[in-house]
């Protein structure tokens, strides 16, 4: 294997590992802020109990995000020096703004959020929680702006092969940015919701009959039930935006080899790059045309129009189906779960188990979605401007192989430890008597029932 393939693998590994954690913390930050607000308003101790449990999950997740993020910041220069040489004038300031306006904010106020409650007034602790949530979102703003610009570049000019920024508002608010940003924030919301719901379901399954897990399950399931249709809608808009700007990506997603009118929506197929056809097609006639052009006979450009300029088809095609399948599964679970929770206040045993199994489903959907869009941009690094192979490092392949192996082993261990620790935290919390006698007295005195709210 050469340094090009190894660099791509290593970058994919690093960024795939990294994105798992921000995907949780962006929305979990807002959940914590919500818990804190409810606690401030109602004074019922259960909200603070939930805050306490989930802030520890947040801290662990955040730490993993920070360390893998530090690694990312080195990868650009070490493995893709050509990217910074040619596109650094655009990428640099956007990354710089992310560090300045988001990273310091999150990292500094996290200290207050985690350890400061006895040292600062309550309002400042609430504010710190809000700032951390805000910071995670701001960081998503900048990085998605840069990523979107790499898909739909504009506002720049090229002189002697080097990209110069011309109009920053055009660069930041490039055509695919708002769709991608919304799609990612909603993905984060769903990932965190299913994590909270899943781990709460696990606590209930282990015999935890306290209020906190039931309330957390309810909050997260209702939130997911609202977010998932929004996400499907946002995803659809994003798809139309992609059709406009990167038609070959859509052709790969839908497995359309030849331009056709009334293209079918393929539910399953095995794309064959050699013969440029699909095997074992199962599809809905005219479905793709209907969805993408809103007409039964709409024309969709096939891969034949982008000879040598289109991405590898199979990974994009399958990743897209994985993402959509999980999305639909989420829809079914969230709505069914909400129905039962609203009517009975609990989930039936089988659905409780399904929720447990769905704990990390958001990760799979998010990764699959990113693979669709990133592999779908190949062979370009900056769409239409710069090819991935022109950015690669001059490092010896042996060095990259060494670092790749090191990262792969470390990340595998950490991922296992992370998931094991979360489940251990759940099991432990079952045994802990959550509400102290003093707090119970206080709750009785105020007679507030958070579950009825």
């Amino acid at each position, binding site marked *: 294997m050469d340094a090009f393939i190894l660099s791509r693998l290593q970058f994919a590994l690093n960024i795939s590992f990294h994105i798992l954690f921000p995907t949780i913390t962006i929305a979990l930050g807002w959940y914590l802020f919500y818990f804190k607000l409810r606690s401030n308003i109602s004074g019922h101790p259960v909200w603070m109990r939930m805050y*306490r449990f989930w*802030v*520890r999950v947040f*801290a*662990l997740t*955040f*730490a*993993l995000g920070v*360390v*893998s993020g*530090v*690694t990312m*910041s*080195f990868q650009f*220069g*070490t493995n893709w*020096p050509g990217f*910074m*040489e040619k596109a650094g*004038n655009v990428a*640099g*300031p956007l*990354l*710089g*703004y992310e*560090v*300045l*306006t988001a*990273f*310091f*904010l*999150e*990292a*500094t*106020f*996290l*200290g*207050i959020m*985690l*350890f*400061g409650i*006895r*040292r*600062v007034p309550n309002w400042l602790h609430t504010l710190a929680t809000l700032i951390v949530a805000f910071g995670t979102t701001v960081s998503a703003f900048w990085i998605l702006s840069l990523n979107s610009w790499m898909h739909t570049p504009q506002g720049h000019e090229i002189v002697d092969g*080097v990209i*110069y*920024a011309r109009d*920053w508002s055009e660069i930041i608010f490039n055509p695919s940015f708002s769709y991608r940003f919304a799609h990612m924030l909603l993905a984060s919301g769903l990932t965190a919701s299913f994590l909270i719901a899943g781990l709460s379901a696990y606590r209930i399954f282990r015999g935890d009959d306290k209020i906190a897990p039931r309330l957390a399950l309810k909050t997260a399931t209702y939130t997911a039930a609202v977010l998932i249709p929004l996400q499907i809608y946002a995803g659809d808009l994003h798809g139309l935006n992609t059709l406009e700007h990167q038609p070959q990506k859509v052709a790969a997603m839908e497995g359309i080899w030849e331009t056709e009118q009334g293209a079918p929506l393929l539910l399953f197929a095995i794309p064959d790059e050699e013969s440029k056809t699909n095997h074992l097609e199962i599809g809905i006639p005219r479905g793709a045309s209907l969805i993408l052009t809103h007409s039964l006979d709409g024309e969709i450009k096939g891969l034949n129009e982008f000879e040598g300029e289109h991405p590898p088809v199979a990974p994009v095609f399958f990743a897209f189906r994985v993402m959509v399948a999980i999305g639909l599964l989420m829809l079914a679970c969230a709505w069914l779960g909400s129905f039962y929770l609203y009517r009975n206040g609990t989930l039936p045993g089988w659905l409780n188990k399904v929720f447990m199994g769905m704990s990390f489903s958001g990760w799979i959907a998010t990764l699959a979605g990113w693979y669709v869009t990133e592999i779908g941009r190949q062979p370009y690094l900056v769409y239409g401007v710069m090819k991935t192979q022109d950015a690669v*490092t*001059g*490092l010896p392949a042996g*060095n990259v192989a*060494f*670092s790749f192996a*090191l990262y792969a082993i*470390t990340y595998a261990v*950490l991922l296992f*430890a992370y998931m094991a*620790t979360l489940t*251990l935290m759940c099991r432990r919390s079952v045994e802990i008597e959550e509400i102290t006698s003093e707090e119970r007295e206080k709750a009785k005195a105020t007679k507030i029932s958070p579950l009825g709210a």
Partner: protein
Amino acid sequence: MPFESLSIETLGDIYIGLLALAILLYAILDGYDLGVGVLLPPREEAFRDDMIASIGPYWDANETWLVLAVGLLLFAFPDAHSVILQTLYLPATLMLLGLILRGVSFDFRAKVAQVKKRRWDLSFKYGSLLTTLAQGYMLGIWVTGLRTDWWAQGFALLAAFGLTAAYAFIGSCWLILKSESALQEKAIYWARRGLVVLSIGIIAVSIANLTLHENVRELWLTSHWGFVLMAIPIACFCLLSFCGVILKRMPATNGKGEKLPFMIAMTVFILCFTAFGLSYYPFVVPGQMTIADAISDANSLRFLLVGAVIVVPCILAYTFMVYRIFAGKAEKLTYY
């Protein structure tokens, strides 16, 4: 575009200044928490809990200065970033591994079963050690102008131990400030030993440094500025000797002067850093690449400068606020 009047030379100086500030703050701030990690005693669990508690609210933000420094180097001096990090690819990878291990251990140790806690503590300690050694090694190779011969390797190894000693010293001074009774006594003991190792290290690195570059030797030994410059190492030694005297008298019963060792350590860091900075300005890679060779496009630099001018003072202000909030002796780490 604001700052239109700034020439590319001025922008280069501003950005090298920002980069220097980020690196200096990183060395001091992450320096003490890395140092605390390196000092972590494998056999005394109570000490470990208190030591880690003393850096709990800070380490995340401390590490962010590294991200800023790398980001600024990457963006303002992309050619220097490429050549430095490609030459130092393996030590940089090991440093990142060290940072990953210590960063996650911090959170895992508090959440896992008791039997596994020690394992994460060790991973914290050796992750910190790997980080400091790798950083010192990288610093050493950078100073030689990215040479890879044996003499340069030897110098880099010296720098690796020197920087580790410096971090351990500032870490123990931090602990004197943040801890009480038994741990404080232990920290004073560490600081005394660290002081000796650090002094030897500074002398060795300074002398070796003079052998590396013709122009550096000239600047320090024969130029008119030489006398002024010499004030820096002399001041360093006065401060370190003073620190030795203070440490001998500690622990004072009323807790007087507990801040002094850390203040001195910080000043020594600033002085050593200034000496380095003056020696190698205007190079971004000593002897190889100047600021002017490596600087990126002026318009992009101006665009980020707008943000930096507004945001950096805010960052310094709220960082200061957090240190005020958590001032005094460290409490046991509980998620409140």
